C-alpha cells in the first residue's frame, strides 16, 4: 500500500517537474564560445589571390596579429600554400545585402571534406569577407580589420557575443575594434592562457 502510494507520488512529481527541468536547462550559457572548432587554435591560414587583388593583405595580417596577442594557445600563421588543411581566406561577394563576412567549417567525411556546422569539430575552415557589401557601406580600413578579425574569431572557436553583451569584436555588425578584454577572457576559457 505504501509502495503504491510512493510510486503514485513519484509519477505525479516527475510529470510536473520534467517539463520545468527541461525549460531550465542552460542551453545558451556559453553562446560566445562555439561548441565546435578545430582541436587547437595553433593553426595556419592561406590567403587566396582575391585577398591581394582587393588590397586586403595588410588588413588580414593586422586582424590575425591581434588575435595572436590574446593567448599563448592562439597562433594563426600565414602560409603560402593551400596544400593540407590550412584555413583559407577569401574576399568575395554576397547577395545578402547586410552580410559582411562568413566562416564555413569543413570536416572529413568518407574521404572528402564537407561543410560542418559550428557546433561540430572541424578540420579547417574558410573565411570570406564580402567586398561588395563593405563597399556599399563605405567601410573604413579599421572596419575592414574588425570584420576580418570577427571571422578569425569564429575560426578559432568563438561564436557571437549577444547585442546586449559587453563590448566585443564578436558582436555582429560594423565595428572598429580588435579583441576586447571580454573576447580575450572568452578565448582563454576556450583555449587556455
Amino acid at each position, binding site marked *: 500500500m505504501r509502495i503504491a502510494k510512493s510510486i503514485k507520488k513519484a509519477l*505525479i512529481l516527475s510529470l510536473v517537474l520534467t517539463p520545468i527541468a527541461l525549460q531550465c536547462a542552460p*542551453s545558451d550559457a556559453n553562446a560566445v564560445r562555439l561548441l565546435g572548432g578545430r582541436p587547437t587554435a595553433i593553426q595556419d591560414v592561406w590567403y587566396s589571390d582575391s585577398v591581394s587583388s582587393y588590397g586586403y593583405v595588410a588588413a588580414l595580417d593586422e586582424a590575425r596579429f591581434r588575435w595572436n596577442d590574446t593567448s599563448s594557445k592562439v597562433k594563426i600563421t600565414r602560409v603560402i600554400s593551400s596544400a593540407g588543411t590550412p584555413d583559407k581566406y577569401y574576399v568575395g*561577394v554576397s*547577395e545578402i*545585402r547586410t*552580410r559582411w563576412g*562568413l*566562416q564555413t567549417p569543413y570536416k572529413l567525411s568518407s574521404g572528402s571534406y564537407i561543410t560542418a556546422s559550428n557546433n561540430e569539430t572541424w578540420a579547417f575552415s574558410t573565411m570570406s569577407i564580402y567586398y561588395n557589401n563593405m563597399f556599399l557601406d563605405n567601410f573604413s580600413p579599421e572596419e575592414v580589420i574588425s570584420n576580418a578579425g*570577427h571571422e578569425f574569431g569564429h575560426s578559432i572557436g568563438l561564436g557571437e557575443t549577444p547585442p546586449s553583451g559587453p563590448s566585443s569584436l564578436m558582436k*555582429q555588425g560594423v565595428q572598429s575594434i580588435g579583441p576586447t578584454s571580454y573576447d580575450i577572457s572568452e578565448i582563454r576559457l576556450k583555449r587556455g592562457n
Partner: protein
Amino acid sequence: MKKKSKYIVASLLTVTILATTAIVYHNHDSASTTPYTKVTNLSANSLKLQDIDQLDDYVELVVVGYATEDFSDREHKIKAYGDGYLQDFSTRTNIKIDKILKKPADFPEDQKELTIIEPVSLQDEEKITAENYIELKKDEPSVIFLMKNSFGDYSLVNDNLGKIILTDEDPEAPMQSLTKAELSEYDAFRKSVLEKYNLNQ
C-alpha cells in the same frame, strides 16, 4: 479515496501516452515531407539590430507579405570560389505583398509581388544557413525588412529579426528551432514591430 487516486494516476498516464504519440507522429510526419536531411548552421558577420526604430531607419523597404511556394520549390543558389569552396548561398523567394509599410520613391505603391533574397539555401538534401536563420514559411504573413543588394535585388536583412510572423507562431522548421535566448529576443522584437506599425490584431 482509493478509487479517486487510481483514477488520477490512470488519467495522467493516458495524457502522457497521448502526448508522446502526438510528438512521435508529428516528428515522423515532418521528416517524411522535409526536403533535407541535414541542417548546416554557419557563423557570419551580418546586421543585427534589436531596436525597431533603428531597423526602420536603416532599411529601404518594409512590407507585410508571405511566401507563395514551399521552401523546396524555391530557387536555391550556392556560389563557390574557383577551388570549389563555399562563397555565398541564398534563396530567391517569391512573395505576395499585402501591405507596404515603408518604401523608397521608386518602388510602385501598387506592387503586389516581389522576388526577395533569403539568407538560406538548399543543396542535395542539405540546408545551409547562418546565424540559425529560418526561412519564410509558405502562406505565413510576416513583416519583412528589405534592402537592395549590389545586384539590384531586394534582400531580407537582420536574419531572424528581419521577418516577423504576424500570427503568434514561433519561427521554426523541421530540424531547426530558435534557442531559448533567441526566442526571447524574437518575442520582444516582435512586440515592438507590431506596436510600431499598428499591426496588433
